[in-house]
């Protein structure tokens, strides 16, 4: 070990602080290189700004959509998506065939007279199936296919030209064997890299989020007169689901999946009540005094809320219904109980998001936006009082299928090469009213912070 130390020390001692003046012209090159880099960075900044603006515009445009346009909207977005996919596929195929040309044709492209035949043929052979696919997809390549097919069919019938081709290739064999080996290895590496590039990447993941809903509703004046007042602080609900993401390139990706999301709407004391008619007029301000509708034939009772009409399955045990003393009709009945209503809705969401990678390092940043179809799967109304929480009924006229727009920022941290930790604040806005009652327009926003894991392969 002693002599090892000696040789190490010898080199360390003499070379650690070794200095030599570099040639003067290097500085000029460095100035030029640094200037190019800063220009490129500015360009990237503008590109990111443009993407952000585009996503924002798409989101705002979706926001403005009328309920009537929802069906069309969905079809449109699907169509755009299909076109996007087609474009991506075309690009991929073009890139592949181009690089294959470079890789395979490099050593052969010497003789100009046979050059097109050789390169076309080798491209055709290497990418046989892919070229066919691309031609089906891209009509502008059909001419090229005819050319390739024509040429390739000629080649086997003309053994002399093949022989000539082989003969012309002969001199290249004499290139130094080590160089040739490197060239072959380079070609292989290029092909492997291209194959990897062409494949695109898939990401699957699972996410969960708290859902904060912010009510946004409007009602007709008549409806609102006898309505429970909606509370500004809604309970936090839960959401989450599975995601699938396809990333054909470095920046853009398309994401879908299945989410479950809860939505809650709480109602309390009425702003307008019939307290004068109430049996408990003195304490009415503390209690629910909203008018109750009683159906004479079915004896079912219902109340108006900002999210729609709540239909009771029976009279809840913990509430008292009061009436005007002078009349025995139930037409002016009111609830006289200190209670709170919570309307819970559950949705299964199928999203279609477009994502753009802003920063692709171990810590990554992505911007995302898109649309979702939401299927109503749960609809319950609970009453909460000092006696506890009881299921009392459901909200009437809820739309089964709804559409929403989403905009968010995704933060991604690589735990390993394939596993990522995700944190995504998102805003979701319902494009149509969740309730189809003509007197009610109920379009809440929800804010969620999606956290989860994803796996890339």
């Amino acid at each position: 070990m002693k002599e090892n130390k000696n040789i190490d020390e010898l080199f360390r001692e003499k070379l650690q602080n070794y200095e030599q003046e570099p040639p003067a012209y290097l500085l000029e090159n460095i100035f030029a290189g640094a200037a190019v880099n800063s220009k490129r960075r500015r360009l990237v900044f503008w590109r990111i700004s443009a993407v952000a603006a585009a996503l924002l515009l798409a989101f705002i445009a979706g926001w403005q959509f009328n309920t009537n346009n929802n069906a069309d909207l969905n079809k449109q977005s699907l169509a755009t998506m299909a076109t996007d996919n087609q474009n991506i596929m075309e690009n991929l195929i073009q890139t592949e065939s181009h690089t294959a040309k470079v890789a395979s044709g490099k050593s052969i492209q010497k003789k100009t007279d046979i050059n097109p035949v050789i390169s076309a043929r080798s491209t055709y052979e290497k990418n046989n199936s892919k070229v066919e696919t691309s031609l089906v997809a891209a009509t502008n390549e059909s001419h090229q296919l005819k050319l390739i097919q024509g040429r390739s069919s000629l080649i086997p019938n003309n053994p002399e030209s093949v022989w000539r081709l082989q003969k012309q290739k002969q001199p290249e064999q004499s290139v130094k064997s080590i160089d040739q080996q490197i060239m072959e290895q380079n070609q292989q590496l290029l092909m492997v890299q291209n194959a990897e590039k062409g494949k695109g990447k898939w990401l699957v993941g699972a996410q969960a989020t708290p859902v904060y809903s912010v009510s946004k509703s409007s009602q007709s004046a008549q409806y609102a007169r006898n309505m429970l007042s909606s509370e500004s602080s809604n309970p936090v609900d839960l959401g989450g689901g599975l995601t699938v993401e396809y990333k054909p390139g470095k920046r853009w990706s398309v994401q879908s999946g299945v989410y479950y999301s809860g939505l809650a709407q709480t109602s309390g004391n009425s702003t307008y009540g019939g307290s004068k008619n109430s049996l408990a007029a003195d304490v009415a301000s503390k209690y629910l005094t909203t008018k109750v509708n009683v159906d004479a034939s079915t004896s079912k009772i219902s109340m108006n809320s900002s999210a729609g009409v709540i239909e009771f399955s029976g009279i809840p045990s913990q509430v008292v219904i009061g009436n005007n003393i002078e009349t025995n009709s139930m037409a002016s009945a009111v609830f006289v109980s200190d209670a709170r209503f919570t309307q819970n809705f559950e949705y299964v969401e199928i999203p279609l998001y477009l994502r753009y990678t802003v920063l692709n390092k171990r810590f990554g940043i992505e911007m995302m936006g898109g649309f979702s179809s939401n299927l109503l799967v749960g609809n319950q109304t609970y009453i909460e009082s000092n006696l506890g929480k009881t299921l009392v009924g459901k909200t009437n006229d809820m739309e089964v299928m709804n559409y929403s727009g989403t905009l968010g920022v995704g933060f991604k941290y690589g735990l390993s090469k394939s596993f990522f930790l995700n944190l995504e604040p998102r805003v979701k806005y319902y494009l149509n009213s969740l309730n189809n009652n003509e007197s009610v327009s109920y379009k809440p926003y929800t804010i969620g912070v999606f956290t989860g894991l994803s796996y890339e392969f």
Partner: protein
Amino acid sequence: MEDFKTIISECIAGNQKAMAKLYHQFAPKMFGVCLRYAKDATEAEDNLQDGFIKVFSNLSAFRHDGSLEGWIRRIIINASLEKIRKQHLLYPVEDVSIYDSVNFSDDVIAKIAADDLMKIIQELPPRYRLVFNLYVIEGYSHQEIAKEMSITQGTSKSNLSRAREILKKKVQENFGELRDQNNYTA
């Protein structure tokens, strides 16, 4: 440090005078680093150029919490490694037969010039040159080298010992009778 802060902010703003000042401050030392990692002066010049372009393009990311020289050195070494990775990715490391151990006497070693040693180090196969530089001169551990070069720690160790053997042999060839007379085997 305060001095550097002003120069750095001027460099970020694109002031060429400040850039030249910073360059002249560190270039000779960094050229020395590049020479060690390169096969010749031309490659070293290329690496120095690429490295300094990266330095000036990323100066805004410098956090002022470590030494500026260390930060620049790291970028220069990375630029050198990157070049070798690109160029020599496909070269198999040539199999070198094990040489007999050679011992040197310190007083003879003292007479050898740094320039000559630089030449010898540049003649090493690229991977041996990298491992030797990173381990012996930069003070990296085998674990760090393995991570940096995507090789195993075992490969790093064997590369280092082979690099040492070759260097010893070259020193012996170039500087003649260096056999250690004061035999310190025991």
